[in-house]
């Protein structure tokens, strides 16, 4: 049990010896299938790099992200000491991008924690309860769905006040309805199945059935959907920042940076382009990761193994 090959055999066994062993084993098999997808690994690599950059931002940044130097403003790419140039106030763009990863991750994490959970709760309860509960919850969902996302977020931010927390809240409020729809559709197919009938016959109540039997089957498709939506969430946050309703200056949020660079875009294109490239890279990474996760987590594939 102390060589790599025997660990592998232990993980790949088809006769696990304990609960944790079985869990680890199925996790490892998922990892193996994920690892065989190079594009998904590429996406995962970018996101891990992003995480590390956010963690060590103060060490990695070559300059103070707030330090202004008006005699040194709008320097082009490749300027000694400022590889990505400087912005309109002479601040180092690379340092601001590195500092901005924290804000991006903060937004993405908060939205990813709020929106899918809310959607899952609403969707599964509506789908399992049926009747008027279903009608009421789904009509509320429809009302939220009927608004264009950014416009609704704008209205929320305008009502709550500008700022990064309110931007997160506004994006979450506009992001949950699609999750509720997915969760409800999945619940409708699951709730009439024999294994739900069987556990009802053992005397299980609706909450146990929803949480222990329906959620595990909905979560994998939700995770996939969330990672695919992450790109949209980052873009929405950047859009709010761009419109001046998200992060406020001097915060180095990427959307806000583009917004500042817009004024010089014809003469000094790199000021707006560099944060744009950062947004593009992270969005792409989340999309690739989502594609790979779909292959691993999709329960329809899992069944036919």
């Amino acid at each position: 049990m102390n060589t790599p090959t025997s660990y592998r055999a232990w993980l790949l066994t088809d006769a696990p010896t304990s609960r944790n062993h079985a869990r680890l084993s199925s996790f490892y098999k998922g990892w193996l299938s994920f690892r065989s997808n190079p594009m998904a690994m590429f996406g995962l690599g970018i996101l891990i790099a992003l995480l590390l950059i956010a963690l060590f931002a103060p060490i990695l940044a070559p300059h103070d992200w707030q330090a202004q130097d008006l005699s040194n403003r709008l320097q082009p790419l490749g300027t000694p000491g400022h590889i990505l140039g400087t912005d309109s106030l002479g601040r180092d763009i690379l340092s601001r991008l590195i500092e901005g990863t924290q804000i991006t991750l903060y937004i993405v994490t908060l939205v990813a924690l709020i929106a899918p959970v809310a959607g899952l709760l609403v969707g599964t309860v509506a789908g399992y309860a049926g009747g008027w509960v279903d009608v009421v919850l789904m009509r509320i969902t429809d009302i939220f769905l009927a608004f264009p996302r950014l416009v609704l977020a704008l209205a929320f931010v305008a009502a709550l006040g500008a700022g990064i927390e309110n931007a997160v809240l506004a994006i979450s409020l506009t992001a949950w309805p699609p999750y509720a729809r997915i969760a409800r559709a999945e619940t409708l197919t699951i709730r009439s199945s024999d294994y739900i009938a069987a556990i009802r016959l053992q005397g299980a109540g609706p909450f146990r059935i929803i949480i222990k039997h329906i959620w595990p089957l909905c979560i994998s498709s939700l995770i996939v959907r969330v990672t695919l939506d992450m790109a949209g969430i980052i873009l929405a946050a950047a859009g709010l920042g761009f419109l001046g309703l998200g992060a406020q200056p001097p915060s180095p949020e990427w959307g806000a940076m583009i917004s500042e660079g817009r004024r010089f875009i014809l003469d000094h294109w790199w000021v707006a382009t560099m944060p744009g490239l950062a947004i593009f890279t992270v969005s792409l990474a989340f999309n690739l990761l989502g594609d790979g996760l779909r292959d691993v987590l999709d329960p329809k594939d899992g069944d036919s193994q």
Partner: protein
Amino acid sequence: MIKVENLNVWFDDGYDRVDAVRGASFNVNQGESFGLVGESGSGKSTILRAMTGLAPTWSGRIEIDGLALHGHKRNRDFYKTVQMVFQDPYASLHPRHSVDQVLGEALHLQGFRDIDTRVVKLLDDVGLDRKFRFRYPHQLSGGQRQRVAIARALAGEPKVLLLDEPTSALDVSVQAEILNLLTDLREEHGLTYLMVSHDLPVIGHMCERLAVMKSGEIVEVMDVTQLRQMQAKHPYSQELIGVSVAH
């Protein structure tokens, strides 16, 4: 043990109303194995679903173990007394729950606390090796899955098992194993069976008495000895037996 009088089950109301079962009456004695035979769509499974509360719209009288049932709500005593084995073992096990989780949860819901020892005992009871304990349904064969489903039904030590075509989704060789297992379990645990099947030989092997159903009605109740000697009275039963013998 089971008393059914003038049972009607229907689905939907108004124009769409479908009467799945009409005026069905039969008795099953304690420890007996009773069969319901008929073509698909004759309403035999619907009777089981009405008993378990899965088909909510019914009228008439159902009494199990001296307990009259009403509507689609069932209480803890009912779940403790009556359990069901479903037709398709590929659909009756949660795809993300291991055998251990399936049996453990059933035992927990039935109010047992010595779950570890009981899970092992259930696996022994249904003839599954202990190495299957932590496997997931997709790692098991059809016959093994059906054994898990039977173990789950036995978790609460019920008195009555409702069997909804428990072997029709399985290979012929596995069918015999499962039927023998069910016969053994009935002897060991003193169970009462109500078994639904479209397969006369299976019913003839498993049951002492049977009811023949045709388009929602019970046309005849007879002994298995009558079945074996081909002494059915109703022309439909004679036809059914004739077809089955011809095969």
